[in-house]
């Protein structure tokens, strides 16, 4: 097909923005936050526009390594939305807390580019490239606040474990190449369906290694150990960014690879996924209960949410895929929304991070309080929010595929999660106001982020038709590249 630039136009826009930001940073004498924010906003909006504009322009290009299909389209929307919200949440924070504003935005855009590559690649090697392009900026971003020891620790931990997991992924890819003689997903899918000339052992081992490598990024138990420390140590806007996009990107790759084997994947393998799903959500939820620091609590909750998406992966088929990607969209908006309020409440220098510190904030900051309440309820899966709609779809996929027990474990986990999410609401509204007076600086851009996320959370919860349709379309065409 040659060079069909249209199928990677959003990626180009994102990468171009990163370069522009880098160059502007070079020539600007004094780093001006508004300039970077505006360029970033323009860049991400252009990328979003290009994503929509080319949503019907399906195709595989660049020697069958990049694919633009509905799945990729959906994930690009998730990434753009995540980055857009991150820009809004970062703007004031970065100017206030950090040195080196330019590189901050540049790194975010490079990471976003990496995610997009991961979600749209039709080749295992491209997936690996995307993963690295995404991860390396994230390692830097995790430690971008050089003055804080916790931040440095987070970066170090993330980097070491991340590098290790990349090794797993690469090894898995090598095994897959050994089994199928190709790294192209199209080729692998075809050979698998024809059912000849591949080694079962190599294929299974390869898949497991890939699962470990990607499971690390998606924060599946038992590969989640980095999550709490990194989430707590990183600056809050980066924690929000990390919890949404990279997780979604890892799942994009997982969905893409596993849907190749979808109808006939072996029972044993599904059992592994089943155990991972149950372990991930249960472990995440149970540990989240004990957390006092809200970022740590949301770190464990993000593990639990990865577990819910795993249910969709186990359920498989078009229903599973569409449920999974819809859930990731919902999770992105509600989680970044929650973090936006947390950044606001944390105040100067991120002093207020404990759930108990929020005592009385519900009445002190009514708007932000209501917003955080909605996000918490949405994360807990209370109806009329995005989180509920996502869970509804996931559990439906599970019940539909006959995984009733998995669905029951899922809803019980949902119940556990209500406990600790409600704890935040309890602190805000029901605990007596604390004595300490910490100034919470108001920020317009942060409130914009809160409102976008709030609107999206309620919109996806009450009138999700449009997004469900797109997800269903993606699900129905998940094997499109094979045809």
């Amino acid at each position, binding site marked *: 097909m040659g060079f069909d630039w249209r199928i990677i136009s959003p990626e180009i826009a994102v990468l171009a923005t990163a370069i522009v930001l880098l160059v502007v940073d070079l020539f600007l004498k004094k780093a001006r936050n508004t300039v970077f924010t505006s360029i970033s906003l323009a860049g991400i909006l252009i990328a979003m526009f290009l994503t929509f504009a080319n949503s019907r322009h399906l195709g595989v290009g660049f020697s069958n390594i990049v694919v633009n299909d509905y799945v990729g389209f959906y994930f690009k929307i998730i990434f753009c939305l995540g980055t857009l919200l991150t820009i809004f949440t970062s703007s004031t924070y970065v100017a206030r807390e950090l040195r080196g504003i330019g590189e901050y935005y540049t790194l975010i855009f490079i990471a976003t580019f990496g995610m997009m590559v991961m979600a749209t690649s039709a080749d295992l090697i491209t997936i690996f490239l995307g993963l690295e392009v995404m991860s390396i900026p994230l390692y830097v971003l995790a430690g971008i606040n050089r003055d804080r020891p916790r931040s440095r620790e987070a970066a170090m931990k993330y980097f070491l474990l991340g590098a290790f997991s990349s090794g797993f992924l690469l090894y898995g890819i090598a095994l897959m190449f050994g089994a199928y003689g190709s790294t192209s997903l199209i080729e692998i899918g075809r050979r698998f369906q024809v059912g000849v000339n591949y080694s079962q052992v190599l294929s299974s081992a390869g898949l497991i290694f890939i699962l470990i490598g990607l499971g690390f990024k998606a924060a599946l138990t038992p590969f989640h150990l980095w999550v709490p420390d990194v989430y707590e140590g990183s600056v809050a806007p980066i924690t929000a960014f990390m919890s949404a996009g990279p997780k979604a990107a890892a799942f994009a790759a997982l969905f893409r690879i596993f849907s190749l084997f979808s109808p006939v994947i072996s029972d044993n393998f599904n059992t592994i996924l089943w155990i991972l799903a149950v372990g991930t959500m249960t472990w995440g939820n149970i540990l989240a209960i004990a957390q006092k620091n809200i970022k740590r609590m949301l770190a464990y909750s993000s593990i639990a949410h990865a577990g819910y998406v795993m249910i969709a992966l186990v359920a498989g088929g078009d229903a599973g895929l569409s449920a999974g990607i819809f859930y990731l969209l919902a999770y992105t908006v509600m989680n970044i929304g929650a973090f936006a309020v947390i950044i606001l409440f944390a105040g100067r220098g991120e002093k207020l991070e404990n759930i108990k510190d929020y005592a009385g904030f519900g009445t002190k900051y009514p708007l932000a309080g209501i917003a955080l309440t909605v996000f918490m309820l949405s994360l807990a899966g209370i109806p009329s929010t995005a989180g509920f709609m996502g869970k509804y779809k996931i559990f439906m996929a599970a*019940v539909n595929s006959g995984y009733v027990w998995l669905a029951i474990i899922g809803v019980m986990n*949902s119940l556990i999660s209500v406990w600790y999410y409600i704890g935040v609401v309890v602190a805000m509204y029901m605990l007596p106001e604390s004595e300490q007076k910490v100034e919470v600086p108001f920020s317009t851009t942060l409130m914009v982020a809160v409102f976008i996320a709030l609107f999206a959370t309620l919109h996806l919860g009450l009138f999700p038709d449009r997004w469900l*349709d797109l997800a*269903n379309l993606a699900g129905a065409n998940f094997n499109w590249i094979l045809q």
Partner: protein
Amino acid sequence: MPILSWIVFLPLFGAFISLFIRRTQADALKWTGLLFSVVDFILTVILFVHFDGSRIDMQFRDGPFVWIRSLGVTFSLGVDGISILLVILTPFLSIIAIASAWNAIREKVKGFVICMLILQTGMLGVFTATDLFLFYVFWEAMLIPMYFLIGIWGGPRKIYAAVKFVLFTMFGSLLMLLGILKLYLMTSPEPGNRTTDLLTIMNLRVPPELQTWLFLAFALAFAIKVPLFPFHTWLPDAHVEAPTAGSIILAGVLLKMGTYGFLRFCLPIFPDATLAFVPLISILALIGITYGAMVAMVQKDVKSLVAYSSVAHLGFVMLGIFALTDQALTGAIMQMINHGITTGALFLLVGMIYERRHTRLISDFGGIAHVMPVFATFFLIITLASIGLPGTNGFVGEFLILLGTFKSNITYAVIGTAGIVLAAVYMLWMVQRIFYGELDKFENKSLLDLGPREKIITLPLLIMVFWIGLYPRTFIDKIEPSVRQLLSQVRDRDHHTQLVHPDRTRGIGKDRCQGSGIFSEGEIEWVSTGE
């Protein structure tokens, strides 16, 4: 005019309006809340007057409109004889609850009014939704304002009580969600044709094996809400800690959502399972009646006494529902309303005395009938209604339930009757200790009797006590046809499956023509014809 949508969403609109009133203007906020509840109540009265009691289908239907197309979710509302009374009861008690809080709630009035109004929309939605998804949304949505009501304006252990309330209720309803999903998936093999519309789902023929599981999933959610023994442990905590307004709504309306759920979903959708579970649920109901009464007897706190009495009363309702006869079911619905009125009134009165003395311990009172004669009279009337004295509303409900149960199972009826005796014991003993005897506590000597506002709030409840007690036909006439229709839905399928012992089926719905004449014909004769 889509009157049902107006009724359901008017309170929500009121909550929206309240957002724009400054929080310092407490009076304006309270009046807004009251105004919207009153208008809502007037609308429900209009609804009741125009409600055709001879029809068995859903009336005043709104929709079905497509809400979420890709999930087959419709927005559709409707009322029939089973829900019509609950629809009136909800704004009726909301008015009283808001009025009761006039002086009691002084902090965060804005939040209070908004919570009350959202709660009202949630409850009305539950009673009118004819789509399972919509029902579930309302069912869960009303949890949140109730949680805030208990958690913000509650007593010393409010947080514990509020969280416990939410977790218990969620536990049941999440499994129900899976049940709803399963039913939805069963409506059609084609993903595009599936729907959560209640009428479509009622026509499903669920295989008996599956019915058992789905019945359990639904029944657990409802049983926790009712609460049926042994799922009642959240109730005393929630009641004792909730503010008066919260207790009134909680006891008056929220608990009815559980029993209503059994009537609306469990019975018609899972008829075979319903028949199979009759013994289990009846026995749990009977345990609830006796256990609730016995525990109530030893309570020191008036509010927790009333809370445990709710367990007993709702046990009666459950007994009536699962007797599966005309009278028992009619009685159960009436008893749902009666319990709303009497227990709502009891909590209201307890709240009044609490505002004066800031204690609810029975031992802190004694002989206060001397200083508060009007209050004592009101309290006594409500107490008598609660224990089912003839001429009051309690009698109508309990009598019908026991009558109906007697036909299906004599043993259950006998044990249930014993429960009434126990109820008389603990209620009257409480009244005796609080109001009569010597006025020996110094603090009680200066108690003021009810003021005009308090009298006005209590009066409508007293009127209802005697209206239902003396002329229940106003209400029974509207619900009987729907009850018969419901029973035929359970029974007709029974012919196909033959799950139930022939002895039991004989009693069910046999006397359908005689039902409406309960109080006009000779009672004794009528009982004998039934057997």
